[in-house]
């Protein structure tokens, strides 16, 4: 079997891909949709429509609010009913554009056919412009604007494009389904990004628990005229973490605080690749994504993989799938290791939504916190080689210098430490705060240095 994986830490949760057999279904349009202005990393988008405006499906309704930001498009045709604060899944107010859905009339110039377009005609800049105009962001979780990531700063050279099909989070199957059902589109998307990055080595990494996807991908790569490798990976969480995947595939490590491009790597999710394909070859903006409705308290026949329009309320999708199961104790958007608990089911889906996961209270409720027994399981599990028990102690003592010296800022918040702690100490909860403290100290120092430099030149 596959032997390739990252070398430090990692855990092996039960992969529980219960909904792997559910083909992607298309959700019908609801009456109202709410499009969030903060669906991506970076500055929120600025609405460019007014209340009462008629909008078409795929029409730009908000533009980037900064360099790291993205366009937002209307998910349906209808009327803008309101623009204002609405609670997101964490219950915090975020500006949303409310659209009263009247139909599904698309803007012109979008190729809605299913035909596969394999020829990449545009040049590099045109492709980047198209990706930006279509609002494509990284769909692996971080929702970093793709056009920024594919356009590394001058001087840095991309040596390897890694397509992340690891889907190492338990339960989630949306990436798996698109790898099965939209295989060729993903490969073409990868080829497009390969072209943008100057024809570097391109690898599609897939964990070995998805043999069907590996096979389908190998077949598609063989049939299409691009130079792309398919790499089966050993199953281990968090393989899908950018830094871990780079180490697994390239045997290189991104330095602390550095970007993947510093070691010549660019990592993109397979779902992003699909979005890139649709944007560049079909001129179709990112208004749909695939989401899994699953959980350990939901019978398999009630589990689904849905193609949803971005802006559908989570509650609408849950209702359509048959309602929230009675045994559900926690609702999660995303995987059980890194997903976010849903505090407000009325929240709208965003570009990065990947699942509605129902976990039973028994399986998810945390145990009573007890004293640290110094077993060292947290540091064995940490894929960054950190010592969560130590960071925890330093955080409690408020020792910011100690936190920085012990690399609290390197934490990727994967959750392996808390997952493996026998004393149920909320390690990640506190290490995340510790990380914030260390980062703030580093930033403050950098700012002071900058200020000193400026005053010197004056």
């Amino acid at each position, binding site marked *: 079997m596959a032997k390739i994986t990252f070398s430090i830490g990692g855990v092996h949760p039960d992969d529980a891909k219960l909904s792997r057999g559910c083909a992607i279904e298309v959700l019908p349009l609801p009456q109202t949709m709410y499009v969030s202005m903060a669906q991506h990393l970076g500055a929120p988008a600025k609405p460019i429509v007014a209340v009462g405006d008629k909008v078409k499906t795929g029409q730009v309704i908000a533009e980037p609010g900064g360099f790291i930001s993205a366009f937002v498009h209307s998910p349906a045709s209808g009327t803008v009913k309101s623009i204002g604060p609405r609670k997101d899944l964490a219950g*915090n107010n975020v500006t949303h554009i409310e659209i009263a859905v009247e139909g599904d009339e698309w803007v012109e110039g979008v190729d809605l056919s299913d035909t596969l377009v394999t020829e990449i005609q545009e040049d590099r800049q045109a492709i980047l412009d198209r990706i930006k105009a279509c609002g494509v962001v990284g769909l692996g979780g971080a929702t970093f604007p793709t056009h920024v990531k594919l356009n590394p700063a001058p001087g840095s050279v991309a040596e390897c494009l890694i397509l992340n099909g690891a889907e190492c989070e338990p339960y989630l199957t949306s990436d798996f389904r698109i790898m099965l059902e939209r295989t060729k589109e993903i490969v073409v998307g990868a080829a497009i990004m390969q072209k943008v990055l100057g024809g570097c080595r391109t690898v599609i990494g897939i964990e070995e628990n998805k043999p069907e996807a590996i096979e389908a991908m190998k077949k598609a790569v063989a049939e299409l005229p691009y130079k792309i490798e398919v790499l089966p990976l050993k199953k281990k969480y968090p393989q899908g973490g950018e830094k871990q995947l780079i180490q697994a595939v390239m045997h290189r490590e991104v330095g602390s605080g550095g970007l993947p491009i510093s070691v010549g790597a660019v990592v993109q999710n397979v779902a992003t690749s699909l979005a890139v394909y649709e944007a560049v070859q079909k001129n179709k903006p990112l208004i749909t994504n695939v989401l899994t409705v699953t959980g350990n308290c939901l019978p398999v026949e009630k589990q689904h993989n849905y193609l949803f329009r971005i802006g559908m309320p989570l509650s609408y999708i849950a209702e359509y799938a048959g309602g929230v199961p009675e045994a559900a104790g926690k609702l999660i958007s995303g995987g059980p290791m890194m997903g976010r608990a849903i505090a407000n089911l009325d929240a709208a889906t965003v570009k990065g939504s990947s699942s509605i996961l129902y976990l039973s209270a028994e399986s998810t409720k*945390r145990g009573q916190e007890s004293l640290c027994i110094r077993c060292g399981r947290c540091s064995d599990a940490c894929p960054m080689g950190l010592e969560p028990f130590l960071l925890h102690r330093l955080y409690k003592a408020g020792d910011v210098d100690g936190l920085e010296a012990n690399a609290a800022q390197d934490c990727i918040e994967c959750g392996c430490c808390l997952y493996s702690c026998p004393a149920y100490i909320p390690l990640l909860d506190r290490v995340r705060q510790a990380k914030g403290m260390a980062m703030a100290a580093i930033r403050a120092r950098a700012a002071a240095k900058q200020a000193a430099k400026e005053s010197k030149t004056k």
Partner: protein
Amino acid sequence: MNSIVIWTIVILAGLGLVLAVVLFFIAKTFKVEEDPRIEQIEKTLPGANCGGCGYAGCHAFADSAVKASDLSAHFCPVGGNEVMKKVSEILGFAVVEKAPQVAVLRCNGTCEARPAVNYYDGDKSCRVKAALYSGDTACPFGCLGCGDCVDVCEFGALSMDPATGLPVLDESKCVACGKCVKACPKKLIELRPKGPRGMREAVLCRNEDKGPVAKKACANACIGCGICVKTCTHEAISLENNLAYIDPAKCKLCRECEAVCPTGAIHGVNFPKELDKAAVKERVAKRNAAPAVANATVIPSEAKESKKEVSNG
């Protein structure tokens, strides 16, 4: 036997003497010359090293105060005016008086008024909870109830009330050091002037949602209706982002706003008499019903009356 005892005494005494001389010279050689006033000031300070003044501790405060050209940037909230007067005397600066302050929690969303809509299962820390989401009630502005403020208070002035789920302040212990203000991730705690004999009015809410949303989340929320603003005859209340705020400098403690507030978001404390809401409401209604021209003359007298009522009580 005898000689052993004598020798022991001699050796020990000699050793003690030699070490004392060594210590004396070490202390002399390594003595750090310091402004003697620093020590003087430090002695007057409470010595709590709480950092409420903005310096690392009492010594740092004294060190900085000695070097300062006036005391405008130095105030020990724990010692208050009394201590600052002494410090000013030591340094020969003019005395700067500050009104004594007290920490006020601007949330009155009790468990009853603001029912939980979900169950929080993370680390029992407001910082962690606030970073995760809006909280276990429908109000995204209110108190999270994990007691970060209680944990940082070095004077034991704060404690959690299990009945309300909110921290309660023991006014006699609060020194307004401001640690809780910094600790609260929802910025709910404000240092407000203690007021004459502790009497003060405040809007105990920070909900900026629109009225119906706020009301649905919490029965005690400020719904931004503006009735208090209209009622106040001293222009002490401002309304911004659906939230009223009483300026303590302008408030005359007439308690009319408290009486007319439909949700009970405005609270007065330490008043000797209980507020007769109905009577005040009636009075306000009568005044509002009076012709607009007359208003100008009526208001001051009414206000005076209400002021008298307070001081009488």
